[in-house]
């Protein structure tokens, strides 16, 4: 067996190349902006996919982890005057720590307690962002966050920032793929299939759920600090319940339990409203219709549909109809 770091390297390298080439096919900088936001959303969706698609736990408060990290680095780098890397580290750690505190009691219970706890948590965070005007700037937002600069290099142009986000995303995808193929990933899929059976096999299910929950919050945290130092402005409206639901939709639409699906779903849902701008007042109707159509015609999500097409091509090439398709997970 290949060493852990060499697994899935080819897939990740292909993905990184695609991300690298993408800007050359885009007509102007505005599209790069959308790609950056898509990449940031894809990062959150990757983490949420590990939690939702593999461990079978729903978080309805991921927007809050995203926002918490964004605000933490905003406050640290301006009001406290800390260097940007320190602020970013603080942001990610805060998201992870809070997730640990929420997960500790709730993940010991069976059922959808995590969904309820994160739902409440998301609303509380949103209220705090709005009300603590002295710290967060309140509903009008937090201005004056410095643009990212690391090791003397300032990511001033959108293109340079895009490549940073692309690099982080490619690494996160590689990490996720390797995690799923590892011992931990096997445990997660076991938990998703049957908690009792996983327990009788000796899997510490509460421990693994907590680990994945904290990990997915950390992913959201990384996305949050990248977001804050990209827009240089954060406001509570970006981190509300609506966005939490949208993140879940990204994962489900992309295809549960698929790394590629989650990212595809995130890019798709980020770009879709932009593509519909031209329809002005009916855009939200078309948006809804497209989502309904996706669920009707791609019940297994984008990843499931892609796998189906792939199988059909294979069948045509072999010129016969094989028996049952293989089960298991995609990507």
């Amino acid at each position: 067996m290949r060493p852990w770091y060499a697994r899935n390297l080819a897939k990740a390298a292909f993905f990184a190349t695609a991300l690298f080439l993408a800007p050359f096919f885009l007509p102007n900088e505005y599209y790069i902006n959308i790609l950056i936001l898509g990449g940031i959303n894809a990062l959150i969706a990757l983490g949420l996919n590990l939690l939702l698609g593999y461990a079978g736990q729903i978080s309805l408060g991921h927007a809050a982890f995203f926002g918490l990290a964004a605000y933490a680095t905003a406050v640290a780098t301006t009001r406290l005057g800390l260097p940007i890397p320190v602020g970013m580290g603080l942001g990610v750690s805060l998201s992870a720590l809070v997730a640990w505190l929420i997960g500790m009691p709730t993940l010991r219970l069976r059922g959808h307690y995590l969904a309820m706890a994160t739902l409440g948590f998301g609303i509380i965070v949103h209220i705090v962002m709005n009300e603590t005007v002295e710290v967060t700037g309140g509903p009008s937002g937090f201005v004056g966050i410095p643009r990212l600069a690391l090791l003397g290099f300032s990511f001033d142009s959108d293109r340079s920032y895009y490549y940073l986000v692309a690099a982080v995303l490619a690494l996160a995808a590689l990490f996720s793929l390797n995690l799923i193929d590892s011992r931990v990933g096997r445990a997660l899929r076991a938990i998703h299939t049957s908690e009792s059976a996983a327990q009788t096999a000796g899997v510490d299910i509460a421990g693994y759920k907590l680990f994945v929950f904290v990990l997915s919050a950390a992913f959201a945290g990384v996305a949050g600090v990248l977001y804050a130092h990209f827009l240089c402005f954060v406001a509570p409206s970006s981190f509300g319940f609506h966005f939490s639901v949208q993140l879940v939709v990204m994962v489900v639409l992309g295809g549960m339990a698929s790394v590629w699906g989650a990212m595809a779903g995130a890019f798709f849902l980020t770009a879709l409203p932009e593509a519909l701008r031209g329809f002005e007042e009916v855009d939200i109707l078309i948006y809804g219709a497209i989502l309904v159509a996706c669920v009707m015609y791609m019940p297994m999500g984008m990843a499931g549909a892609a796998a189906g097409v792939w199988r059909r091509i294979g069948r045509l090439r072999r010129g016969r109809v094989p028996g049952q398709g293989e089960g298991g997970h995609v990507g």
Partner: protein
Amino acid sequence: MLALENVDIFHGRIHAVRRVSLHVDPGEIVALIGANGAGKTTLLGAISGLVRVGGGRILHKGDAIQTLSPDAVVRRGISQVPERRLVFGPLSVEDNLLLGAYTRRGRARKADVAADREAVYDMFPVLRDRKKQAAGTLSGGEQQMLAIGRALMARPSALLLDEPGMGLAPAVCKEIFRHIVKLRDERGLTVLLVEQNAKSALAVSDRGYVLETGRILLQGPSEELLANRDVQRAYLGRERDAL
């Protein structure tokens, strides 16, 4: 090896198991028989740490284990083959077996685990033929073999089996029981076997306990239980023979 002392278990307000005491000696096959709802599965759950006891003690090699978590129980060498098999359907046969070895980790153990996997394949060759197949696509008998193989991957010294014959054709059921006896004979495994099918269970076990509505009603060597009129009437459907 394994002993229950005055164990009480409650499901909410229902007193599911009432002051049950039983013991399983090393290398023994002990059958626990009783009708649906007698509390058999609940008792196995308590030993595995899946169900909390309301009173009494569960001893393994002299230590009380009733407060341990399920994974700690597995690490102590007690594995359960759960009711309805509960194989991980979407995962491959091979992944299912690897999950059974979940509590054994580290590089040095890797070769051991691979050897154990081969031993399971030698025991159930049909699993080797299907190792890449999703476990959910196997037949009932094959899934039962996989569930047993998965439990063995933890290298247990005691095996708890919950209705291994459920829903299987008589011939397949017989084969499963034959393997259970073989495991005891060849590996010295201690077995606690829960069954509704009293006849097959008592045929392969050394001793048996009869559980009814949460209480131990009868206990003794399996031949005696097989010959007992109450057992015959209640579980073997031989009322007319006895008269």
